[in-house]
């Protein structure tokens, strides 16, 4: 029972950290970034490259965060910014970008499944049981990401400017806020978070050019259900991720893989606001 509870909590936190970058970009830019799955994949390969180069596996997530942030700034400047006035085209562009990134990864690293070294292996004692050390570490990082994003939004000038841009961009611009810079920084942050999440989940999985796709689908549904709210995303991850664990454990892992999508669609059908806490 304790293991099941830990599975539910850690799965929820992993889902949260994976979806956080998508939510950040949607919140500020009103853009659904369909390249999010590809960014996760880039993070996975960054972890592999870092460990293959003989560097500490602990450097994988920070390296992925930095690489993703830089790449995000560049992509925003070259691909997304020219399409701000055409939001549908911007969404399609991120879809295309995801395909291009996946193909480039395939060209560079091949199609085969590969593995990255884990910073921590084995289990840690937790009360009267033992649990996967790396899942616990990732869960701790997810909590830190949630706290960090909350602090960034509510305790910093950048966060205040970003919230102003979310609420009323023309008014924010009239007050001297460079909404273009806010958008660029946000896209970089979202891409960096996605890459870092990819590096964090890699030790739990294998790496292949399409590793981000199922995570993109689940992240997309979670963000649709939660809206742009960190507590709501936590709640959605806990409820839907918990259901996924229960279905996988007691019914079928294959059905478990569909649980989030099906439940999210049903939830939105019943209540279009989903689990939004406001």
């Amino acid at each position: 029972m304790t293991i099941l509870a830990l599975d539910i909590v850690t799965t929820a936190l992993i889902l949260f950290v994976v979806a956080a970058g998508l939510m950040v970009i949607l919140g500020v830019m009103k853009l659904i970034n369909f390249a999010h799955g590809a960014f996760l994949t880039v993070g996975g390969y960054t972890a592999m490259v870092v460990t293959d180069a003989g560097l500490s596996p602990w450097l994988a997530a920070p390296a992925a965060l930095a690489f993703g942030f830089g790449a995000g700034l560049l992509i925003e400047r070259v691909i997304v910014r020219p399409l701000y006035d055409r939001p549908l085209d911007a969404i399609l562009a991120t879809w295309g970008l995801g395909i291009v990134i996946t193909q480039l990864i395939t060209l560079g690293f091949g199609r085969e499944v590969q593995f990255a070294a884990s910073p921590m292996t084995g289990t840690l004692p937790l009360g009267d049981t033992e649990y996967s050390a790396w899942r616990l570490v990732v869960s701790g990082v997810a909590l830190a990401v949630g706290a960090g994003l909350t602090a960034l939004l509510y305790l910093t000038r950048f966060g205040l400017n970003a919230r102003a841009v979310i609420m009323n961009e023309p008014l924010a611009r009239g007050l001297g806020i460079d909404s273009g810079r806010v958008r660029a920084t946000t896209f970089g942050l979202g891409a960096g978070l996605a890459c870092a999440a990819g590096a964090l989940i890699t030790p739990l999985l294998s790496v292949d050019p399409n590793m981000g796709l199922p995570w993109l689908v689940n992240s997309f549904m979670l963000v649709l259900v939660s809206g742009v709210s960190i507590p709501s995303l936590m709640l959605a991850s806990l409820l839907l991720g918990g259901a996924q664990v229960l279905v996988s454990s007691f019914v079928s892992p294959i059905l478990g893989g569909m649980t989030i999508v099906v439940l999210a669609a049903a939830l939105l059908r019943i209540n279009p606001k989903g689990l939004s806490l406001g």
Partner: protein
Amino acid sequence: MNVPPVAPALEVEGLVSGYGGAMVLRGVSLRLAPGEIVAVLGKNGMGKSTLLKTVMGFLPAREGRVRLGGEDVTGRAPHLVARAGVAHAPQEFTIFQDLTVAENLRLGVSSDADYRARLGALEGVFPRMLERLRQRAGTLSGGEQKMLLMSRALLARPRVMLVDEISEGLQPTMIDRMAEALRAAREGHGVAILLVEQHLAFALSVADRYAVLKLGEIIEEGAAGDPAAAGALADHLKV
């Protein structure tokens, strides 16, 4: 000894602007000296708000120039015009409803240090704002929301304020307070104020000069203190 001439705080020269193919402003020219208050009067649809939006950079100038203290800012993005020293108090969508009063005020100032240093200045003009700092702005009354709008513009310590129909929907006592706040901004910090108004008595009580905008052109200008002006202006503002 020759004293160099002081550049106008705001100079609008031959401004042409509009929406799509429809030109709303047809060659508007205005000059505001530092510390001067000029009221732009006119009925609805004559181009008053369009003038402010074009000065701010929200609408492109098809022809003409906008200068701030002699510096050409024509075509600059709104955030750059704001940073050049212009505070805009628009008529609609004026505050961030879901932010607190304090957060709305912070957004008007470029740094939190300046915000803390200047906040006390509201004691003399809108002390109620200091009592409501933690309140969500959307829960303020209509008059209080106008106070917040003006407070935010005052804290910015701009060179130029663009104020769009601030008296609309306000009670007479509140209109008097707005007039006091505008005078205080001018006297305390030498702010030049372009006041777009339909409330003739309020506009003439605050302004040094007036200009009447009709169908995108300035058809009449004069001193606000001229007793003959009020009657003629009232005719221009009749619907």
